[in-house]
């Protein structure tokens, strides 16, 4: 049995919790987010050679980076930073979150998930911008919590990289 601790980070209302809610195994209610500041779920990812249980720590502390309990990030094998493709400001939050994590925990595999890709007419982040991040070696993916687009792939990819 292989487990990996993955933290879910991201700005306010980027659909982080919805992602977790729709595509993973949930046990605890969302009130944990407001009370304890973290909600833990499990995502089972089947890789060709093995199965990985991703233990997802959905960490509260939305726009303000300072409000995240950094102790919750301890020992994680990877993380997902979620941004909202219709609100460019959430991308800035995601970038600053990543910087902060990098500074504190060093280089850990991560994925930038630009969510709400189903709302194409409201999409406000240019492909060029995302491409420049990809060029820096980032794993950048678009996703939609509503249609499920890109979600499985993102988790599979992250699971792959954390077990490599």
């Amino acid at each position, binding site marked *: *049995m*292989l*487990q*990996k*601790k993955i933290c879910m980070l991201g700005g306010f209302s980027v659909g982080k919790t919805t992602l977790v809610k729709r595509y993973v*195994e949930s*046990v*605890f209610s969302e009130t*944990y987010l407001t009370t*304890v*500041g*973290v909600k*833990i*779920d*499990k995502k089972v990812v089947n890789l060709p050679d093995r199965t990985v*249980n991703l*233990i997802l*720590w959905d960490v509260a502390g939305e726009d303000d980076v300072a409000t995240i*309990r950094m*102790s*919750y990030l*301890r*020992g*994680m*094998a990877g993380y997902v930073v979620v941004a909202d493709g219709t609100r460019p400001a959430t991308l800035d939050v995601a970038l600053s979150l990543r910087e902060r994590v990098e500074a504190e925990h060093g280089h850990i595999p991560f994925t930038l998930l630009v969510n709400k890709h189903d709302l194409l007419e409201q999409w406000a982040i240019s492909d060029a911008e995302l491409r420049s991040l990809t060029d820096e070696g980032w794993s950048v993916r678009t996703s939609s919590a509503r249609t499920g687009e890109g979600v499985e792939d993102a988790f599979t990819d992250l699971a792959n990289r954390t077990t490599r």
Partner: protein
Amino acid sequence: MAISANALEQLLQGSSSASSLDRKALGRLLAELARSVDTTLAGQASEVPRFDPRLEQLRTLLLGREIESLARLSHQIDDPEELAGAVSRVLPAAIAQASTRDGTLGEVLAPAVERATRTSIRSDPQTLVNILYPLILPAIRKSIGEGIDATFQSLNESLKHSLSWRGLRWRWEAWRSGVSFATVVLRHTLVFQVEHAFLIHRHTGLLIAHVAADDAVSQDPQIISSMLVAIQDFVRDSFTAGDQQGLDALRLGELTLWSEAGAFATLVAVIRGNPPESLHDTLRETLTRIHTERGQALQTFSGDSAAFPDVEAQLRESVLLRQEARPVQRSRYPSMVLSLAVIVLVLFAGWLFHWWRDERRWDDYVGQLRAEPGIVITDVGKHHGKWEIGGLRDPLAADPRQMLRSTALDPARVVEHWQPYQGFNPDLVLKRLVGSLQPPTGLSFSVAGDRIVARGSASYAWLQRAATYIRALPDGAPIIDLSHVRDLNQGALGQLRASIQSMEIRFAHNESLPAPSEEAKLDQLASQLRDLDALSASLHVVTRVTVTGHSDATGKGTSNLSLSLARAEAVRALLKKRGVDPDLLSIRGAGPLEPLEDEATDAARSANRRVSLTVAFD
């Protein structure tokens, strides 16, 4: 020489390509050279002369650099300071390599380290104290805390059970088996089961191993273990506790969650029921053993629990305990307990009956007193084990002390205080009337409701007295009815009385015996007196007849008096002779003092010489 040239070439080529010389080849070359130079040496194939300036020259030529470095090395090895410097440069790396290979280094070093530590402590214990202080203090604190917890737990249990029926039974068991009461209480009350045990990696919060009891249910243990770590972090952050401190226990209804933290892993037990403090020790021992046996794997854990193949079995064996409630043992002394209980019960019942009987007797006594005329009870009570009663009592009423003696109550336990008063109860009024008026025997009284009715006969005089007495009674007193009482002066008795009193027996002058003409009169008188006596007896009337003798005024006074007495005596004797009871008759002499007529004439004087009779009824 061709061979030697080839060999030299080969040697030179070899030495230029590799840093180390082929010593065998060099030896063969040198021997060949020697043989070619001096043929006398041809027979000594392998021997090299000890010192030969030419060879030395060749050696210097060929091996100058190696000889220098050999000299430097041997100097380093021979000089202790140099050697120490050289070893110190490679020692850390060497130890690091050795410890990763296997555990031999630890085993080899252990005795030396122990000796060194001992020496250090002997020379200056303070150093070691300073080193250990931050480690030992929390451990001591925790140990003392748990000790106090255990004491409180046993104290609580003892208090809770000391007064109940079950507590008494356990006290009996403790006394019988010779162990402390607290131990017995714990043995009976600490029923628990460890339902889950989680071994959680501290750094990542990932689950290393999980075991559950057969009937235990829970959510996904992987998620739960992470959540437990998150909650630990949350509490630690919220209350800014140190890294080594955390949640030791959580309680949720019947479930208790105990957490034991080690260096790399935390052992969390979910317990249903009432675990003893000693379970902490079990958890700690298990965790320590896992750390000792798999410290390396725990340190480098990255989410793959395959590195801990038999930890689950270990947890199951040592932690998944269950303590069932012990079946109730049948007491070996049921008959003894039973008989003791019966004796106590019988004694109690006896006491109860005695008490009840006395209370009943007392109630009866009080009831009797209440019914008794002339007694008014104003207070009844019990004080210091004694009955108390008091009120008003007519002096003519029954004596309470007398009544008490007939009740079988202990008079010493009864305190009485009575105030005198006069009651209007008909019985009492009658009693008082009888005492004051002394009614004649021919009279009887009966009480009818609020009336006292008198029946029978009484003399006029008595009736007069009674009427006065009744008039003097206060208002509210019972009515005394005398209307049914016959006046003795009327009726047959009255007629007889009148007839007897009208008769006179005449005497001649200075004679003490009646004249012969009076015989018939005496007969008639006697007959009437006999009738009177009989009638009085039948009417229960006491009748007294006084026979009075008289004389005329002639002659001396004293002789007249004795003459009159003699005349009364004579008449009584004559009446006795005629069958009249002499006890009925009393006699007296009146002399000339009660004349019937003034003695102016002889006829008058003759009339005064007589005996008269008076009849009185009581």
